[in-house]
């Protein structure tokens, strides 16, 4: 076994996080959030296919204000996850690996996700 007695510094409040790190944490957090939200969405899908009454009930749930707010956060999480995922895939293909474009694309993901979520939310 390796002897490991290096000093460890893990005070998260004193770390300086580059934007790509914050964006990456957002990728993980949004993923976990969506996994937890999954059964709720299956429930809505189930309800919406239970005849006239079920369809109306599902629509009422989706159109109530608190649920709409949760749906907006979910949409934001989804778009952040999707855009960050596309960024990671491009990096897998050696596109945008250098520091400057990495920083730029991280900012683009951070900003584009809420803007797109607002746009889609207003359209639907």
């Amino acid at each position, binding site marked *: 076994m390796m002897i490991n007695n290096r000093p460890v510094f893990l005070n998260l409040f004193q770390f300086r996080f580059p934007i790509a790190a914050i964006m990456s944490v957002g990728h993980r957090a949004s*993923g*976990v959030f969506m996994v937890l939200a999954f*059964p709720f969405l299956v429930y809505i899908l*189930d309800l919406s296919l239970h005849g006239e009454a079920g369809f109306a009930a599902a629509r009422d749930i989706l159109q109530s204000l608190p649920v709409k707010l949760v749906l907006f956060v979910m949409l934001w999480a989804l778009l952040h996850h999707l855009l960050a995922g596309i960024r990671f895939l491009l990096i897998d293909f050696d596109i945008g690996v250098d520091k400057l474009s990495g920083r730029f694309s991280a900012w683009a993901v951070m900003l584009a996700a809420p803007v797109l979520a607002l746009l*889609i939310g207003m359209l639907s």
Partner: protein
Amino acid sequence: MTRQASGFRAWILQRISAAYLGLYFIYIIGYFILSPPTSITAWKLWISNPINSVGLMLFFVALLIHAWVGFRDVVIDYVHPIMLRVGILSLTALGLVGSGLWVARVIFLGSAPL
């Protein structure tokens, strides 16, 4: 595939499922923006089309694979006590497989004609 290669398998599964999920999400968000189903009849008609029900089923298979690999990575990174890790991962697997069976039932029954 050997045990040693399972990291690569998870990595590649994560990316293939991501590609399908990404494309499907763009399609489904487009559908709900452009022509959202306004009645149970329209909704049933959409989901009873084999292209849509099978596409949706595939979507959930890709989603479960993707969610499992991603969630497992997060748990392995942050949860170190082995019994706690095994507990969380077991519950997650049960939850994901359960949700998957539930959604399969919903799509099978829901796509039957009205």
